[in-house]
């Protein structure tokens, strides 16, 4: 029962979501909020907005309680961290502030011992990118990670997540996302203790101060590989690339991988399918 009276119960759980612009960290938090509300919980889903663009590291937060929540600040010491991108942990300190014994759920193809995340925590994994590519056809991993969340934490029933997805999207998009949740629920690996794993060094992204310093190569899940034999020099990719990563040499497209964030617009737009879309190895 939600009332206006001062609450009796403290916060049950605080979660921080790490993702990239376009992976749906914000929508994911809303879906989870809605599903938890169906479970009778009170939630506060806090997105962090800035001037993010597609691919940039983003965060959002979720507070869960039995009663109305008054804390309007951000979450600094989460009980759980959810990472929507397999490469994000290399450039963002995802375990910062995480409570001892806290849980990390990370989108990663390998087991919890092989993610490079170590310390007094538990790590569970799910290959959400693979699930999303199979069910949605794009590396939008929010709904897949929620399916894994349901299995790993047991805090929310899959059926409630499905209902929340129906509430968010109608028709085909809702169905695809529900499939992603179900599939991820099946394939998620349970959490393992990583106290003995050494935390890999986090290479913080430097903010580019002048032209040429900008490096967004770590944002990429897929890389474009140009096939010169098929390229007709139409310059469509050259014009449309949002990161100005594509140049022209001898009337053939070339790519500067330092500037390429792997958004896939070139691949989508190429009229002769001269681009191979290769997944980066993790």
């Amino acid at each position, binding site marked *: 029962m*939600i009332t*206006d009276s*001062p609450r009796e119960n403290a916060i049950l759980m605080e979660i921080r979501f790490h993702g990239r612009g376009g992976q749906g960290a*914000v929508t994911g*938090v*809303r879906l989870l*909020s*809605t599903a938890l*509300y169906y479970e009778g919980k*009170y*939630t*506060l*889903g*806090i*997105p962090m*907005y*800035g*001037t993010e663009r597609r691919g940039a590291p983003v965060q959002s937060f979720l507070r869960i309680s039995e009663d109305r*929540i*008054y*804390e*309007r*600040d*951000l979450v*600094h010491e989460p009980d759980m961290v959810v990472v929507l991108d397999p490469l994000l942990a290399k450039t963002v300190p995802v375990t910062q502030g995480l409570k001892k014994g806290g849980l990390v759920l990370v989108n990663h193809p390998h087991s919890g011992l092989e993610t490079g995340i170590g310390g007094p925590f538990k790590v569970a994994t799910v290959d959400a990118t693979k699930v999303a590519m199979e069910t949605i056809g794009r590396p939008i991993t929010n709904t897949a990670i929620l399916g894994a969340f349901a299995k790993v934490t047991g805090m929310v029933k899959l059926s409630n997540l499905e209902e929340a997805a129906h509430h968010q999207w109608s028709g085909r998009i809702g169905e695809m996302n529900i499939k992603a949740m179900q599939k991820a629920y099946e394939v998620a690996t349970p959490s393992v203790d990583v106290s003995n794993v050494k935390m890999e060094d986090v290479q913080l992204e430097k903010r580019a101060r002048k032209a040429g310093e900008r490096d967004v190569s770590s944002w990429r899940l897929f890389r474009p590989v140009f096939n010169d034999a098929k390229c007709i020099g139409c310059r469509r990719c050259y014009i449309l690339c949002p990161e100005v990563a594509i140049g022209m040499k001898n009337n053939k497209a070339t790519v500067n991988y330092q500037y390429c964030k792997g958004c896939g617009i070139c691949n989508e737009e190429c009229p002769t399918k001269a681009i191979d879309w290769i997944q980066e190895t993790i």
Partner: protein
Amino acid sequence: MPQKFEVMVGNKAVAHAVRLARAKFISAFPITPQTTIVQYIADMVANGEIDAEYVTVEGELTAQASAFTAEAAGVRAFTATAGPGLLYMHHPMIATRNNRIPLVMAVMHRGIKGMDPDQTDMMAQRETGWMMMECESGQEILDTGLMAYKIAEDERVRLPILFAGDGYILSYTDEPINIPDEAMVDAFLPPYKTTIPLLPNQGQENRDFQMKQYSTDLDPQATFVEDQQAMENAKKVIKEVNAEFKKMFGRGYGNGLIEEYKTKNCEAVIVASGTIASTARVAIDKLQAEDKNVGLVRLKTFKPFPAEDFALIGSKVNVMGIIDRNISIGSGGWTFGEIRNSMYEVEERPKTLQFHAGLSGKEVRVQDLIKIGEKTLKAASGVKVSPLVEWV
């Protein structure tokens, strides 16, 4: 009756308030963090949930001017803006008040310096003569939106009103919000009927009103006297509407002007508004659990300023720690000045401490508010504290 809840953001709560109030005219111009308000309303208009004229205008000046004329013509109108958009509205906002048009507007705070929220955008409109209410949760935004129409349209008031929330912190935060029943809202807020229609063929009243506004025969100051009286009346009306809302929907916000939280037997109180007040409740809980007797006074209505309420509180406490998410460069915080002004006639005035917090979106954490509470309490015990003006 089973209550209908939905997990939604504050901006959607505003859209639901507009839908439930059955606004007939919406002028929309987007500006972050208000954009999704007009976006949700556009969806609702397209889906047939709102039967309204939805006008996309070319800027905030027109957004205000068109909503004002629609309301003057006799329909319930709505517009929304934020930060720089609100500054651009300044001139037509004064015209709206001059003509005593009971327009309702939502403001999602956005700072003047950057994108992040503080109250300086609203502070810049202090002298426009609009009523101003500040919200601390998504639910309160929805409820205040409904109350705002009833307050503004009251014949004793007939002044425009804006209700505000912190951008991002409320506008984009998801939380379960109760959507009141349509029939109950209709009973609470009957259809709007203007008593001074704009169109000349609609009666003598309008011409009389216009004559009064612009006639040179009368005392030029006469309308200011009336507007000031209307603002004074508004204090009573806000209390009445808040009480009626609480009776019908089970939710009230203090007395409509201010809300006291755990102030019983407290010699020291902190004063806050908006989302800072929400977080401050947690700080107060924690302080009082350690027998540190600090209470919270939440300021809900900035205009008309609840001077009488603060005079009453001032006669009971020793120290007030006043938190302002705003500053008038050169003179200090908005509420700090107003509260001190309110308490001048009190025999034994309390000491006051000024805190500036959360400007340009700086995060205000529970621990910051605990420190503010502790400093206020220290001052109450007679210890000299410094500085008297602190940036948190």
